[in-house]
Structures are given as C-alpha cells and as structure tokens.
C-alpha cells in the first residue's frame, strides 16, 4: 500500500520492460504523462485560483461582462492544443511503424489460440504451452484462432495482438531480459475460468537450445502416462477438462475410462481406446449428454503414438483402467449398444 503514492508520483506505471520494442511505447507514454498532467493541472489550478480570486463579495455583485478574452492568449492556447495533438501522434509513430514489419531473420513460432488455452508450435512441429524465446533473437509469432477472437497480451513486451479466426495475425519481438513474464488472453471471452494464462520464458541462447531439444522428443525418458499428462497440459486440454471430477466446458477425465458414457442422442457408449481416439480426432461426433459440441478437432495435431500415451494416462485416472493394458479394458466393455 505504501508504494502506491510513490508509483503515482514517479510515473513508473508501466511494468518491467523486457524487449527492444518497449522504448517505443514507454518513451511516448512518459512524455504524454508529463505534458497532459501539466495541462490538466494548469486548467484545474486556474479554475480554483479564479474561484478564490473572483469570489462574490456582496450579494448584488455582478461579473465584469466582456472580460477574459484575449485574442493573443486564446490563439496561443489553441495553438498549444493543436501542437499537443500533433505531438501525441508524432511521438507514438516510430514505435508503431517499428512493430509493423518483423525482421526477415526472425525465428518463427506458431501460436494457436482457443478458448482457455494457447499452444505454441516450434520448428519441427513441436508444441509447448509456454512461449519460449532466446535473449537478443527476434521472434515472429504467426497466430491463428480456432474459435472466437482472442488477444495475445504480454505486458513486459508492451505487446497486444488480436487473433481473429480465419486470419493469420503477426507480431514480433526481441526479448532482452532472461526471466519469466506473464502472458494472457486479453480479449473478453465470457467466462474467466477459460481465460488462457501462461508465460513467456526468456532464456539465454544455450538454455533455449537445450529446451528446444527437450521438447523435440517428448517420449525420451518418460513413461506413456507421463507423456499423456504432458500432452494434456501442453495441448490445452486442461482448459476444458479437469482431472478432479469438476465440470467445465467438457466432462472431467476422472474415472471415465472403462465406464459407459451417455450421449446427447440418448445412446450410450463405452469409454474405451477407440472412443477416446475418435473423441480426440472427431470430438463432435459422439458428444456426452449435457455438453455442447464445441471442442476443436485435433486431427493432424496428435499422432497415434501420442493418442496412445493420452489413453494410457486416462487409465491411471480411472479405477477401471487396469494396469495400463488397453486390450484387456476394451474386452470388458464390449462396444456400444442402443439404450432404447
């Protein structure tokens, strides 16, 4: 609390800067802060002064009609206002132009925004749920949305970019500070449970290269359920599906494997390897009762081995999952049947 007045006075309103582009925003911000604070204080100060100086002294007193207009003063006043308008545009222009064209050598990262999650695609088709960048190396973000309009916001980079479905939106930055910074979806998407929040991780080149290696082969050094759990968080599944039984946009994964699910059309289906595979690749074919067909298909985004890993992990969340032997579980359920 004590730091608040200090924050106001020093005009250090902006968060810690972490890219080369921040100067293009911060310098105009500080300049406008000083100039507009001066203008507002001047106007209000004069008003208070006039109220005190020209206070009514007796009940019959009238104001001096016709005073207060000086052609020279008024001209200067309007000129100053016009200059302020030109100044505001001019000072903010270089940073704006600088942001509009990414350098051609920039390192490309694909961004997919969906309600509740971002996923980031690095060269070689490797995904992660955090945005990583190396210090000093320009990164260009090629962004797409699978559902509604989203916004990528990274305050430390002074970056906001809308991501509209059906278009590729671009933004770029060169990070300057190795640290972790907040990153979130900043366009209102209706339900805060689904506001995607993750991080920008800026690393030194060596650490960054090592990290890129580590995501390249997610199966190395991990059991299948561990890979499944990793994909659950990386691919954004966790935005809509909990593992504790709580209900979000989609059903929880807790204890579903090996049980029967009632569908919207009234039929039931056994939750087995086949159903899980189909629900990942064509999610809106067989939707569980009480839920809307709103999930994004993952066809082409997950391969068979990865789907297998997810299935193995789902088994560990269920008392019907057995020991991880998918064939045994499938035998016990015996396919789907009509209820009515």
């Amino acid at each position: 609390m004590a730091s608040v007045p200090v924050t106001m006075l020093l005009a250090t309103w902006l968060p810690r800067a972490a890219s080369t582009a921040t100067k293009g925003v911060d310098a105009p911000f500080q300049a406008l802060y000083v100039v507009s604070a001066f203008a507002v204080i001047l106007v209000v100060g004069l008003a208070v002064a006039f109220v005190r100086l020209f206070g009514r002294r007796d009940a019959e007193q009238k104001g001096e009609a016709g005073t207060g207009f000086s052609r020279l003063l008024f001209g200067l006043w309007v000129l100053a206002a016009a200059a302020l308008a030109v100044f505001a545009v001019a000072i903010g222009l270089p940073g704006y132009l600088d942001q509009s064209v990414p350098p051609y050598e920039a390192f490309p990262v694909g961004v997919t925004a969906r309600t509740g999650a971002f996923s980031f695609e690095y060269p070689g088709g490797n995904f992660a749920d955090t945005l990583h960048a190396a210090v000093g190396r320009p990164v260009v973000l090629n962004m797409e949305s699978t559902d509604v309009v989203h916004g990528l916001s990274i305050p430390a980079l002074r970056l906001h970019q809308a991501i509209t479905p059906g278009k590729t939106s671009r933004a770029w930055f060169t990070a300057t500070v190795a640290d972790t910074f907040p990153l979130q979806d900043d366009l209102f998407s209706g339900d805060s449970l689904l506001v995607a929040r993750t991080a920008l991780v800026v690393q030194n080149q060596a650490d960054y290269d090592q990290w890129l290696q580590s995501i390249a082969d997610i199966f190395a050094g991990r059991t299948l359920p561990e890979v499944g759990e990793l994909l659950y968080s990386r691919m954004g599944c966790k935005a809509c599906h909990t593992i504790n039984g709580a209900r979000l946009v989609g059903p929880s994964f807790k204890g579903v494997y090996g049980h029967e699910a009632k569908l919207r059309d009234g039929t039931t289906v056994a939750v087995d390897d086949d159903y899980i595979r189909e629900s990942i690749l064509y999610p809106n074919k067989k939707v569980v009762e009480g839920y809307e067909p709103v999930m994004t298909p993952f066809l082409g985004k997950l391969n068979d081995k990865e789907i297998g890993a997810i299935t193995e992990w789902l088994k560990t969340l269920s008392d019907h999952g057995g020991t991880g032997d998918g064939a045994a579980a499938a035998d016990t359920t015996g396919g789907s049947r009509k209820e009515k």
Partner: protein
Amino acid sequence: MSNGGTASAGSYLTASDAAGAWFGARDHKRVGMMYLGWTMGVLLLGLLFQILLAVKALGGMGADPALIFRTITYQRLLLVFLFLAPVIPVTLGYFLLPLQIGARNMALPGWSIWSLRLYVGGLVLLLGSYVLNAVACGWTLATPLSLTAPGAFPLLAAGLALVGLSWLLTGSNFLLTVHTKRRAGMGFFKLPLMVWGLYLGSYLLAAMGILLAVIVGYLAAGRAAGHGPFGPDSDPLSWLGYFWFVTRPAAYFALIPAVGMIFAVVEGVSRKPVPGYRWVVGALIALLAVGVSTWGIHLGPWGQAPEVTFVFSVLSVLVVIPAAILAYFILATLYRGAVACAAPTTFTVAFLLHAGIAVAIALFLGSPAPGAYLGATMFATAQLNYILWGGVLSALLAGLNFWWPKMTGHEVSQTVGRVGGILYLLGVNLMLVPQLILGARGVPADMGPFAEDSLGLGEVSGLGMLLLFFGLVTVAANFIGSVNCDRPVPDNPWGAEGLEWTVASPPPPGNFD
C-alpha cells in the same frame, strides 16, 4: 401552497395530484422529474453492482467468476445505455429546454412520456434478462461470443432496442422543439449554451438510438437464425464497427450536453456571460464532428488493419482542440466574474478535472504505439469510467445543485453540497487512478476482479468507491432533506440570466402563463 414563491397559484408539482396525472404526464417538467428518479435508480444499481464486484474481487465471498462476468456485462450495459448516454437530456434537459427557450412545453408532449415508458420497459427487460438467465458475453456484445453464450439474449436485445427507441423519441422531440418552439426573436445564435449542447446531443441520441435498435435486432436475429449481417459467418469487426459507431458518439460524447450545461452553470454562478459565445458553439460542433468520426479507435485492439487504426488515431487526438477551446471559455467566464462559493462551483471544478483527464487519456490511446498497447487494457476502460463517473456525473450534479430550487421550490445547503462534492471528487479519482495504473501494467479491460495486483491497487480503488458512494449519499441527503425546509425560494436565487429564472420556483404548469 406551502412552498409558494411569487406565483403561488399552483406549481407543476401540485397542479393535478391524481396518481394518473403523473403516470400519463405531458408536462415536460414532470417527465424530467420522473426520469430523474429512474436514472438515479439505475445509477444506484450500477454502484451496488460495482460494490458487489469489489467485494467479490477482494475474495471475501468465494468469488464465482461466471457470476462476476455476467454482472460486469449488465452493469456496463445499464450504466452506459440507460445512464451515461441519455441522463443529462432526459433529466435536466426535459425540465429546462422549454423553459430556456420560452416555450410552454415540448413540441411533442406525448413523445416525452412515451420515451420514458420505453426507457422503463427497456430497463425491466434488461433486468429480467439478468435475473432469469444472464448472458456472459461482455457489454460490447462482441460476436461470435454473443451468438453462442447461453442465456436470455432476446430479452437483453429487446431491452436495448427499447432504450434505443426511447433515445430516438427524446432526440427528435428536442430537435423539433428547438426548431419550432423558440420565443419570437430568439435566433439560433441567441440560444443559451445549454440549449446548444442539448440540441447537438439530440442529433446523436436520435440517430444512434434508432441505429442501436436496428443493430441489436439484427444481432438477435443472427443468433436465432444462424445467419444475417452479424451472424456466425460474419467478420467480428463488422459487429464491433456498428456497435462502436453507435456507442462512441452516444456515450463518450454525452460530454456535449454536459459541457453545454456546465456553461450555463458557470455563467450563472459567476454572473457573467461567456466572452466568446460563437467560439463555444463552434467548439461544440467540432466535438460532435470528432464524436461521429472516431469509432474505429475501438477496433484497433480487435485486429483492424493498422493503417485504418492510424487514421482513427489521428482523428481522435483532434478532440484536444475543441476541448481546449471549451476549457478556455469556462476559465474566461470565471475570470473577473462574481463567483458564488457554492456547490455548483465545486462540481464545475470537478467537471474540469475529470473531463480534462478523459481528454488526456484520449491522447494516450490515440498515440499510435502506446494506443496499440493500452487499447485493450483497463486504461481504456478507465477513460469511459472517467466520462461516466467523472465528467457526466459531475456536470449532472452541478446542474442539479444549480437548478434544484427552480425544480422543487426548496433550497439546499451549499455547505453540505460542497462537502459532498469534495468527497465525490476524491472518491472518483481514488477509484479510477488505480484503474489507470493497473491498465498501464497490462491488466485487460473488464478483468479487474481477476487481476494480479501486488501493489494493492484494487483495495485503494475500492476505498475510492466507498468515498464516492458517501459523497453521493451526502449530496442526495442534502436534496431530500431540503424538501422539509419550507422557506420560500425566490424566482432567481442565483441572480442568473435566462428565461427559466423569470418564472416562479417551482414553475407553474404552463411555464410562462
């Protein structure tokens, strides 16, 4: 008549006291007083929602995020469309416009009362939608979310459409009244500045009112039928473009009637005519021009082409020029005036501060690089809040304190009014400066309750809100308490110019009869 002034034959308040006489009132003064009650109800509701949100945000009540988002959506819709945009025309505007131009009534007295009925109908539908099944789609109703978010959307859309039609009736009634009902010899350049503000603002209310009704109709149709100009296949910028084309002028430039009224108050309290009448009229017209040509500044954060956003940036910073001219002449009217140390003066200073900050924020948002960063943050929301809680509300309170004796025949305590004004001024800024800082730190618009806030700014803001609330309670208590004081009020307690001061306080039903 216990409160009789010079003409005690019967005021508009007591002329015919049957309940139906108010319900079906054709007298502009009664319509204005009823509107005052309803708009103050909406303001109170908005404030209660805000306090609810603050309490939730502090985490005291096991915040349910979905409920918070729904509440933000409806709070904004109510405050922007039922308070901010229409409040000055429908309260003091209805009451004073015929009086100030020397007319007995509005040109279309039936439309006055029908605009109120539509307004109340819209309010009931909106609240019904909130209570039955609130839609969590954000107050800008951005597509495609507003097409899919579950809830009682048809009620919400019908409510907004009725409110839009109510604006249309009010706006066109005002325009017609100014054109046809002026006293003989009163040319356009002899109109009081408040009338100019109302007249120019009426173009916005009429045009944007009908457009609001049409676009929410199309949106609801798109939601129901699955296609249409704002249907699921449409570009999201298409809806937002129309939405802001309506909302930017009607809401942000509700400052036009507000500043017109401030001029009337300043001329009255300093007993001096403004020294540059035609400059002020010109600046008001320029403000109108900026108002209708800057909607695209709101589309920048939503993915509009940067070149287009740049054009709107340039247009929107031009607001500083008419604003500077208006500020100059407010100061010039105080200069060498005989300024009364009274509540309207305090609220006039508050207006200058708040409108000044709102214009300063326009510079930040219009400056290309800072604007691109700040446009989607609370910094931008804080501008609307400064116009709503700051500019328009302080003008309204200045006006109410100034004309209350005329409206009711009772005098309020200037000391209590000034104390309330200072509490209000401190409260508004303590509430909103933290919002500006949070916005600059990157907190997205409308997500305040979920912001990470290591500085404790949310608590400071909540404290400001309480102070604002106490300020408003003080002012309201002063008004309500005044009714018990039976001291007769003279026709012209301020010694001000203007036709409304030549009639009794409160005026008789026919004003000048």
